[in-house]
């Protein structure tokens, strides 16, 4: 039984076939459900499935009646219910609502239309507004949208508004951060056990902190602005157990590309994805963010990593707000469990035009590329640039294609210019990038990850082939509809920049 549950595709050697996996908490009724689910997934992408309600075994301890997953527990606390099951619809109290320049004006429009021109937001300290998408552009409407945010924040006295006024020099704007999901973490807005909603599908990034975080639309955000609540359906949880020592040529991006390739772009639709195991425990916070960032690319509602000492340490100097982490019970029931032996994994890419179009990087070595892009909420964090610098340093060579670097936030930009790269004799990332012939790191923003206005830095205005550390490679994502995007880790992206072909980083990282 267990082996059929945990090895949905025997084609992959990273999935163990261990028989003894200890599924004692798994009621036999759910096996059918999982089989059914697997069948549908493998035959065809099926995005919508009702969470299968399985009988739950009473816990053996006195205090816990029924096991709950982390996600169920967070939503139970936020809805003031003692117990929740997948499929329950509950009104959830929101801890943080985040919006940005693309969806903020529309959300504000709905808030004003529905609650009144002079209505007050539910809590001025729980709304975080981060201009980040279309900043360094001469597009008038894009500029106007940031003005709308500014006016609203002034009217409502919003506590956390990371404004930018001087577009010619981002450094002249001390409040400006950059990419919202990275800024939320750096500014201490991501806390274990809380509920964070945002008008951006990659809001799920914050699940790295052991919180419930998911993306919503403008209308829902308008509702939250007025009430601080939202009706949410409790998702069933898929559990991903990743064990084994992470090889030095892999990054979290490889792990999530592996998982999406395994379950497809709709494999987690309506579901929560929980990441556990010794490999996950060994990841730093930014790598955990990469893992959770792309759960939406599998259709997931949220992703979670249990908070631990790494999490607490990261938060130490970032927030004084008390938080209370929660963890899945041993008796919690998971819709399905996947196991991976990460020590056997190889560097991966997602080929055009879907994040689940997985291939080994070395299988694509004949794919000639035109450019490399390192940036975004997925691959534009400090650790991502340190990783890229490590490859350039190891090779000592120059890039063969234009290599664009877009730090996610002002803090990341500063790190690139100030942090010494380990083993580089005191050199910073910026020095290494310059020696390798990369473009000068650009102003922090979402940049060309999603194309954006025509004058966006590094936007694909022609049908080029790009290796990118971003999150999506659907047609037109980075600008040109016929452009081809290979999603990859910062290691693989840097290695590819050095050769001009999609390249396995082991060629440089010996």
């Amino acid at each position: 039984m267990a082996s059929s549950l945990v090895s949905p595709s025997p084609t992959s050697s990273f999935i163990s076939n261990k028989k003894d996996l200890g599924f004692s908490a798994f009621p036999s009724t759910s096996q059918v459900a999982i089989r059914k689910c697997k069948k549908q997934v493998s035959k065809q992408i099926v995005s919508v499935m009702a969470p299968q309600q399985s009988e739950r075994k009473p816990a053996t301890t006195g205090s816990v009646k029924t096991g709950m997953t982390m996600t169920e527990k967070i939503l139970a606390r936020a809805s003031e219910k003692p117990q929740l099951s997948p499929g329950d619809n509950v009104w959830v109290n929101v801890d943080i609502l985040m919006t940005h320049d693309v969806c903020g004006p529309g959300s504000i429009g709905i808030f004003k239309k529905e609650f009144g021109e002079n209505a007050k937001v539910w809590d001025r300290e729980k709304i975080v507004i981060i201009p980040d998408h279309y900043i360094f552009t001469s597009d008038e409407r894009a500029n106007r949208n940031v003005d709308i945010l500014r006016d609203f924040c002034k009217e409502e006295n919003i506590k956390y508004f990371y404004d930018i006024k001087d577009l010619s020099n981002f450094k002249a704007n001390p409040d400006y951060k950059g990419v919202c999901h990275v800024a939320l973490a750096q500014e201490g807005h991501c806390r274990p056990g809380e509920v964070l909603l945002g008008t951006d599908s990659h809001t799920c990034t914050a699940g790295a902190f052991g919180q419930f975080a998911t993306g919503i639309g403008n209308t829902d955000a308008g509702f939250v602005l007025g009430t601080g609540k939202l009706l949410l359906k409790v998702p069933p949880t898929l559990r991903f157990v990743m064990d084994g020592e992470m090889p030095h040529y892999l990054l979290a991006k490889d792990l999530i590309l592996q998982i999406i390739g395994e379950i497809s772009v709709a494999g987690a639709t309506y579901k929560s994805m929980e990441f556990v195991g010794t490999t996950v425990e060994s990841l730093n916070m930014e790598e955990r963010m990469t893992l959770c960032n792309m759960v939406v690319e599998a259709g997931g509602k949220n992703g979670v990593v249990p908070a631990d000492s790494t999490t607490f340490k990261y938060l130490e100097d970032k927030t004084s707000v008390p938080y209370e982490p929660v963890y899945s019970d041993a008796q919690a029931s998971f819709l399905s469990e996947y196991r991976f032996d990460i020590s056997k994994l190889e560097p991966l890419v997602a080929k055009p035009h879907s994040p689940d179009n997985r291939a080994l990087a070395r299988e694509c070595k004949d794919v000639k590329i035109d450019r490399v892009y390192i940036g975004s909420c997925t691959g534009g964090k400090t650790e991502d640039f340190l990783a890229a610098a490590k490859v350039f340093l190891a090779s000592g060579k120059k890039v063969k294609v234009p290599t664009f670097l877009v730090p996610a936030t002002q803090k990341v930009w500063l790190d690139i210019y100030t942090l010494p790269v380990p083993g580089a004799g005191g050199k910073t990332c910026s020095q290494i990038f310059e020696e390798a012939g990369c473009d000068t790191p650009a102003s922090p923003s979402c940049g060309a990850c999603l194309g954006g206005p025509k004058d966006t830095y590094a936007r694909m205005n022609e049908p080029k082939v790009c290796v990118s550390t971003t999150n999506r490679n659907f047609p037109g994502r980075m600008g040109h509809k016929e452009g081809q995007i290979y999603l990859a880790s910062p290691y693989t992206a840097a290695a590819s920049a050095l050769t001009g072909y999609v390249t396995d980083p082991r060629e440089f990282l010996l």
Partner: protein
Amino acid sequence: MAASLSQALYLATFTSSASKPSASPISPPSIKVPTFSPLTVQPLSSAFTPNVAHVITLTPHATSTPSSIPSDTSTTTFHGLCYAVGDNIDTDQIIPAEYLTLVPSNPAEYEKLGSYALIGLPSSYATRFIEPNETKTKYSILIGGANFGCGSSREHAPVALGAAGVKAVVAESYARIFFRNSVATGEVYPVESEVRICEECKTGDVVTIELGESRLINHTTGKEYKLKPIGDAGPVIEAGGIFAYARKTGMIPSQ
């Protein structure tokens, strides 16, 4: 059935536990809410009018034409040309990021958004969804494959489709946020097909959707297809979205 249940999202809360969304959508929805969670927040009240069927009146929202607004979902039909797309049509293809500077809640920009609907489809789609220099589509029904609306959470996507004149999308399955945004805005009916029809219906075919009968008829090919019931999402979309529905049913005070 199960799928429509899970898709009803927050709507399920508005129904009594006795009438799950899987109950027949053909009869006028009889909605009783004995256990509606009281919102203590000021602008909302927990008062709720029991019978929605009598409360819903004709209020065309921005995208609706009078001919397509019957008074209850059981007789709602859409008739027109269909436009067929494949699997995993993401929201970047529905409305590319360069047009996201348009604010959907601004009426003039709403119209403009519509004119760019599906402009991100690759050139392999020989027939364009909206003719050059037009602002509306001639295809009122969009037929898709699996995982329609995946990717970015931009609400601009269902809004652009609605603004372009789309009444309903019929797809094998939906990405979560697109489905929710469609219902919350009331812009388009996101209907699921029982079988994969995106390869059997061709762009330009004349089709009719009978929501009450959960049926799609392709008049060009003469074939009929079963749809999954829209369930309690129907009345919300018909009302013009979640806020309009809540006002009509007395969940929140009328303005």
